């Protein structure tokens, strides 16, 4: 096995992120992006939401919800730029942008979740 290749690791993150986004994102977006703003359903109060989010299990859940889908995005977006726009020669720049973005996003999510009072 070629140990230098990190593709299996990136593919694993991509797949895990794909599962997380498929399972969880539709319901989250439906509630917070459509049903609550449009008044179809009663939105939970800020107090109640904060109480839910404060729980360590919720924090861990939200970290997963933010981190893995970003790696999923990074992988797909990278290959869309390679094949869809045929700019594979810029692969170093693309890799830094995509996976760097995912790492930064994960760090930001961890920081935000950590600083919840």
């Amino acid at each position, binding site marked *: 096995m070629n140990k230098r290749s990190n593709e299996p690791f990136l593919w694993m993150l991509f797949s895990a*992120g*794909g*599962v997380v*986004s*498929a*399972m*969880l*994102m*539709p*319901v*989250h*977006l*439906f*509630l*917070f*992006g*459509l049903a*609550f*703003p*449009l008044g179809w*359903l*009663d*939105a*939970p109060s*800020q*107090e*109640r*939401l*904060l109480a*839910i*989010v404060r729980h360590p299990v919720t924090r861990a859940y*939200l970290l997963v*919800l*933010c981190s893995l*889908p*970003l790696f*999923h*995005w990074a*992988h*797909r*977006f990278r*290959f*869309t730029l390679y094949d*869809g*726009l*045929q700019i594979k020669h810029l692969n170093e720049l693309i890799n830094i942008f995509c996976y760097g973005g995912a790492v930064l*996003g994960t760090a*930001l*999510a961890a920081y*935000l*979740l950590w*600083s*919840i*009072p």
Partner: protein
Amino acid sequence: MINPTEYLPKSYHTRISTYWWLTRWAYLKFILREASSVFVAWIVVLTLLQIRALTDGPAEYAELQKWLQSPLLLALNAVSFFFVVFHAVTWFNLAPKAMAIRVRGKRLPGLAIAAPNYVAWAAISAAVAWILLRG
């Protein structure tokens, strides 16, 4: 190994158009599936904004909710919802192809792998909605 091409006088090489993904419906569906990842990233950004506003306090949170009621954001989220559902459906439908699960020597039919995914999707969505909506 000998590469015979080297000894041929000439051959014609075509180049794939940059817009190849517009040339056929199947390719367009593929590129839309890949493009769904951009909306996945947007949902992460939205979630991060929500977490920050929640932490900042009731006034900031109310302001974010007002912003989410603007037509632009509603339109963006409606489109994002379409794409993320498209991602979920294509993901669950392709899962059986990537997994050759054999039970007593026979490969499980695609439906036997896809169906539990859909059941889990429904159950998880209901659980998330219940936690947020109860009380």
